[in-house]
């Protein structure tokens, strides 16, 4: 019987309880943070946080579902996210973070330079974050292709 033919392992009641507790705590923290930011934060930061939290939670849920239901079709990141990664998955993550770390300093320097030349701080920080996410995604893709 191949791995893909296997039925997913049935989680124990203890693990289900722990997973439920973690989800409840994370959801409560996100909701309370969004409410607090909406009430006391500057501008529409609360709404932005809420949208980001919903999108992030949906992506995390999708990754968990994929890694648990079809581990052979999941990515290294999916498997590592649910604690089912093997040594190659960890090697892919190590290469990804190594490349991201190497790019972090020049990207941060570019953002500081932009701000020194008069670029708005919030836009510069936003671009820095987007650039780092993009570098991380490309680095993960390259590492997965090469390993």
């Amino acid at each position: 019987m191949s791995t893909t033919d296997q039925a997913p392992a049935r989680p124990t009641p203890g693990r289900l309880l722990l997973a439920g507790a973690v989800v409840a705590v994370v959801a409560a923290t996100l909701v309370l943070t969004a409410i607090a930011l909406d009430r006391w934060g500057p501008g529409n930061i609360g709404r932005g946080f809420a949208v980001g939290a919903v999108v992030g939670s949906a992506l995390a849920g999708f990754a968990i579902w994929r890694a648990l239901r079809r581990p052979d079709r999941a990515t290294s990141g999916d498997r590592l996210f649910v604690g089912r990664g093997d040594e190659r998955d960890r090697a892919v993550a190590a290469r990804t973070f190594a490349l991201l770390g190497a790019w972090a300093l020049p990207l941060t320097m570019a953002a500081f330079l932009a701000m020194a030349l008069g670029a708005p701080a919030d836009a510069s920080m936003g671009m820095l974050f987007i650039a780092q996410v993009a570098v991380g995604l490309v680095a993960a893709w390259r590492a997965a292709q090469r390993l």
Partner: protein
Amino acid sequence: MRNSVPELRAAAGLTQSELAQRLEVSRQTVISIERGRYDPSLPLAFRIARLFGRTIEEVFHVDD
């Protein structure tokens, strides 16, 4: 590093998924090892060799 994993796996009548299951790694890891893209750790190399009843030197070969 070259290796004889594809030949040994075929001789044992195992699919990549079955080998992955026995080694407790993902199928992608088996594919990467067979293609020579990923060199397994020493513990995994030992598990692979033992699974086929060979020594590590009989399974993995250094590129010369």
